[in-house]
């Protein structure tokens, strides 16, 4: 052999994680930190000490996310650029939403959400076309649409964040506080988790199923917006004005997104399991083992975040009205969802259950989750049954 022992060894040295980072990764980190510092220096009056900690934490989390999952960098940058454009078009006048061309048709939060909605629905159709035709090009189009929809959804939330402050300086809040806003969040997170697995396993066959549940969420969102005017910005009740919301709600929706994803993969599994082996359908549908594995991973991720979110919710409840657990319907449904997935994970991990029954179970889990999120419609309310006394 012509290579020496020494040279061979070097070839195999696994470079440390830091050495794998490219110059773009470092620019990325610098940009995120710059953004964090900008927020810290310019908006200190809007943040208490916990919120500053959350800002620091999310800065680090975003850097790590970008390093671990490279597409997140481009996505974030696109969202930031478009959002800043939208915010700059507004200046300080909310009324421009109807007059300014760009705001009206592109980047006001309502328009951005409409773009998101349309793109997700189109992506669903495209993924189905990809599944049925097997065309690679159509698959790429579907992915591109999903990425664009996610971008616009995030832009919608970012611009809306600014809009809440334009309604009134004392009104401003992070837009994850009512059903309309969290349905946008749900669509985005489900799509992001899906896109991660799409990249990780290099298959677009799962897309049609996952995007179906996102389209359903979009359908609800549109109905809720047009029929009920839910997109109107309403000030927060005092109980919701807390830093807890910034961590509790997103953590919760990572959980919901993952659970919804796993349920849809369960549907895909059931269909794939019935397809005649060797048929065109069987070839185009994702591999059963892969579905089973992603279903598990997604539930595990969802379970971890759902656990965290439920605990954060209990901490918040303890601070807002004096009891970390009151067995009210909201909390109880969170527990039911948690118990359900805990049992699912036990079945899979210790009893080794796989396949069709677990797929069915994941689908049924989605309904318990729907009940849970339904219970959260009114969010926190502080209607204690107070007995009035003439004290003393």
């Amino acid at each position, binding site marked *: *052999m012509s290579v020496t022992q020494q040279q061979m060894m070097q070839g195999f040295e696994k470079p440390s994680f830091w050495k794998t980072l490219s110059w773009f990764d470092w620019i990325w980190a610098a940009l995120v930190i710059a953004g964090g510092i900008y927020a810290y220096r310019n908006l200190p009056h809007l943040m208490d000490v916990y919120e500053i900690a959350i800002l620091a934490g999310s800065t680090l989390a975003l850097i790590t996310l970008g390093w671990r999952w490279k597409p997140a960098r481009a996505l974030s940058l696109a969202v930031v650029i478009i959002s800043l454009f939208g915010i700059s078009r507004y200046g300080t006048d909310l009324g421009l939403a109807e007059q300014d061309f760009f705001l009206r048709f592109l980047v006001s939060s309502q328009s951005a959400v409409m773009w998101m909605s349309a793109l997700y629905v189109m992506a669903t159709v495209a993924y189905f076309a990809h599944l049925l035709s097997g065309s690679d090009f159509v698959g790429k189009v579907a992915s591109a649409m999903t990425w664009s929809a996610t971008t616009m959804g995030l832009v919608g939330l970012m611009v809306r964040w600014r809009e809440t402050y334009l309604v009134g300086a004392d009104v401003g809040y992070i837009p994850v506080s009512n059903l309309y806003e969290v349905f946008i969040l749900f669509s985005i997170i489900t799509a992001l988790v899906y896109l991660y697995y799409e990249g990780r396993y290099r298959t677009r066959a799962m897309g049609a199923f996952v995007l179906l549940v996102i389209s359903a969420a979009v359908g609800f969102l549109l109905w809720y917006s047009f029929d009920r005017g839910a997109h109107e910005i309403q000030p927060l009740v005092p109980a919701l004005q807390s830093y*807890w919301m910034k961590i509790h709600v997103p953590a919760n929706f990572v959980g919901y997104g993952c659970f919804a994803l796993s349920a849809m993969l369960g549907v895909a599994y059931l269909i794939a399991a019935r397809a005649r082996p060797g048929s065109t359908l069987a070839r185009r549908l994702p591999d059963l083992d892969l579905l089973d594995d992603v279903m598990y991973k997604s539930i595990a991720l969802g379970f971890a975040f759902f656990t965290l979110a439920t605990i954060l919710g209990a901490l918040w409840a303890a601070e807002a009205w004096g009891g970390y657990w009151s067995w009210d319907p909201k909390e109880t449904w969170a527990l*039911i969802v948690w118990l359900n997935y805990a*049992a699912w994970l*036990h079945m899979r991990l210790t009893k080794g259950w796989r396949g069709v029954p677990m797929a069915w179970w994941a689908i049924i889990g989605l309904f318990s989750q729907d009940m849970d999120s339904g219970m959260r419609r009114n969010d926190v309310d502080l*209607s*204690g049954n*107070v007995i009035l006394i*003439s004290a003393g």
Partner: protein
Amino acid sequence: MSSPAASTRAAPSRAHILLEFLGSMNLAITLLMAVAVASVIGTVLKQNEPYQNYIIKFGPFWFEVFEKLALYDVYSAGWFLFILGFLVVSTSVCIYRNAPTMLRSITHFRTHAGLNSLRAFHNRQEWVVPRPEAEVTPQLAAMARTHGYRLRSQDHGDHRIHAAMKGSWNRLGYVFTHAAIVIICIGGLVDGNVPLKLKESSGQIQVETRDIPASQVPAESWLSVKNPSFRGSVTIAEGTSANLAFLQLRDGYLVQPLPFRIELKDFRIEHYFTGQPKSFESDLVIHDPELEEPFESTIAVNHPLIYKGYAIYQASFNDGGSKLNIRAWPLLARELQPHDIESAVFQDVKVTSPRGPLTMELTDFKLYNVNPVEDDDASGKQFRNYGPSFTYKLRDETGAAREYENYMSPVEFEGRSMFISGVRTTPAEPFRYLHIPADGKYSLERFLKFNALLRDQERVRQLAEETTRGSFDQLTLERPELRQEVIENMVHLVGLFTQGGVDAILEQVNRSAPEERRTQVMDAYLKVLQTILGELYLELLAGEGIDFSPGMSETDARFFDDSLNAISSLGHYGAPFFAQLTGFEHLQASGLQIARAPGKNVVYLGCALLTLGVFLMFYVRHSRLWFRVEEKDGHTRLLFAGTGHRHERDFAEEFTRLRSELEQRLGIVDRPAPRP
């Protein structure tokens, strides 16, 4: 009888069977699902309502059945706690049985693995490497370390086993999560109301259901001041204090004394421009005999005060018994004699009326009423403050009540000022509003005078006579009784109108006139009514010294129409008087939640363990590798095997990569170096 020796053998086996059962996964999953299903009940069936509501809902039979099953308070029901307890025991047994093995496996490298067991692994590969062992081993070790594995070697004489593993903390995740469940349940039990329920069922304490001052509540309904955990509430009006809290239990309450006194010095509320509350906070003064002097603290929603393990939360706000000056104007009498009332919110006032004695229960006072105004020209919604209002219930002798909401100041409606008063018969329905036009001095006076004038039958008859005199002169000569008939008709119409409004007249027409002539008759009646009422109105204006000879001003004309609309709705309004708020002294009350939860920190510890454990379990991956090395004649027999605990699919990929890397390192197959 078995021998002693036999029984000592039998005893552990029975315990063993029990442990086996309690620690079994089937039981654990059954219990998990049982708790989940049982929990659903409490979200479907509203918990802790007064029993009366359930009887109405289910009927006496099912009420009884559900009561026996404790479905009205599922989460403290014996059977529910039993399942929970069972789950805790089952989890504890699991920990007891598995934790030692798990903890050992964190440090245990399994360097004793036999050839056959290594060959049984799905991920394995064997080679004969044409090199001495001394050259092979460093490569194995280097590769394992490069990929984050820790390595332990053992010499077995003829062969050596190099066992490697990484991510063994994953196993700690198991211990953490399961211990967390037990810890959380124990902490929850400490803070729960199980001891309370036990005391109640043993008759030591009794739920008070009457709405009486705390000082009159009998001792059986008082809890000990030492009670370690509770969650209650109390409402304190500004300037007053309380040293107790009320614990809601079913359809009653218990009284929890506090070792200190809470005084409400001031309560503040801020509103958004939409009128919704933006923030509310209370300035509290805590008087504790153990303190040298009282201290002050301000609490707000999401910002409680924690003192001596008692947490005091801002929960709600209420009226604190605002003092109200009310002027009651009779609406049904011909005399306009107002009656002044001085009272306060939450007080009852006895009033006499033509309809018998009534009780006026003052229920609330609001300083601001911000409502949206639909505006056509402006984009977006506008909001307007309608000023102070108060609500009261008017209860008659039968106990039936109507609720009223009266605004203090007149409100602008399409350019006119109106006094508004809402009325409803049940809290479920929205208020229907009576609009009374305000006169030029923004007072009720002109309307009330007009209304009283209409009820003065003598005056109405007089006026009717005057009105008919001119036009009926000719006719009366021939039929004098006709004029009298017309006059009586007018008086009757006015009477009908003042009692039941236009509806009453319509009803009379429907009763008396044939169907095809009804519209015609109605029009005629209304015309007559309009004429006589107009005359009455003009007389009123003349009394005010207004000169309407050039024609009535538009304002006065509109006032006339608005008055008629108002008088017409008085029948539906139902109150024999209009209660005008003439003055007030605003007093607020703050609703506080007071909780003592010594188990809280235990629960939080459990939560921290749970979070840590879950992430350890799912995101730290436990993988093991084995290298079995045996040298023979300058060649090395190498067996490479590995397993990924609960991530087989990903590990299989990793194993493939490691295997080819090993082949490269050992020069088994000549391939180009892997991509950088």
